């Protein structure tokens, strides 16, 4: 994802695959999350964007 992929996703659109690094509090370890992995697992994904850690969410 080196190039800028600014898009204007609309409801009903297919979301392009993405992968991000995560911290997983449940196992106190780092992990990764990809949309492809969610699709293979048959899971819904709720993305909850917020401005910054150490602020209210």
């Amino acid at each position, binding site marked *: 994802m080196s190039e800028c*992929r600014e898009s204007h996703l609309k409801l009903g659109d297919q979301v392009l*695959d993405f992968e*991000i690094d995560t*911290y997983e509090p449940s196992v106190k370890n780092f992990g990764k999350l990809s949309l492809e992995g*969610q699709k293979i697992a048959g*899971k819904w994904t709720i*993305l909850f964007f917020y401005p*910054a*850690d150490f602020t209210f969410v």
Partner: protein
Amino acid sequence: MGADIVTVSTDTQFVHLAWQRHEKELAVGQYSMGADPTVDLSRMFGVYDDSSGLALRVTFIINPAGILMNSEVNFYNMGRNIDELMRKFKANLYLAKKTDEGCPSKWQEEGDKTLKPSPDMVGRVHEALHE
């Protein structure tokens, strides 16, 4: 419920770890904490604010096929209501099974009144909801 909640900010996973350890409000939170330091994901979803270098308070619901089903956008100074998010998520689960129905604004859970659009309902939504 077959969903993963992933919180995302432009912080790294290392800062997420430090914050989660430090902030007692997060002690019981077990959600994945996504890192977007490149802001690629925030840009892809159109929530990145160039003027501040931060992502707005925005929630997206994506179905298992990767289709974007729902969004809610709040500015920096307003928090989100988790009950309303769960209501929308439950409605999405329900509507995925009942594709010919609609969930009205007061729908809370399965068993509550839904609407089936039809010629009879045109101009008679009140009757459909209350009879």
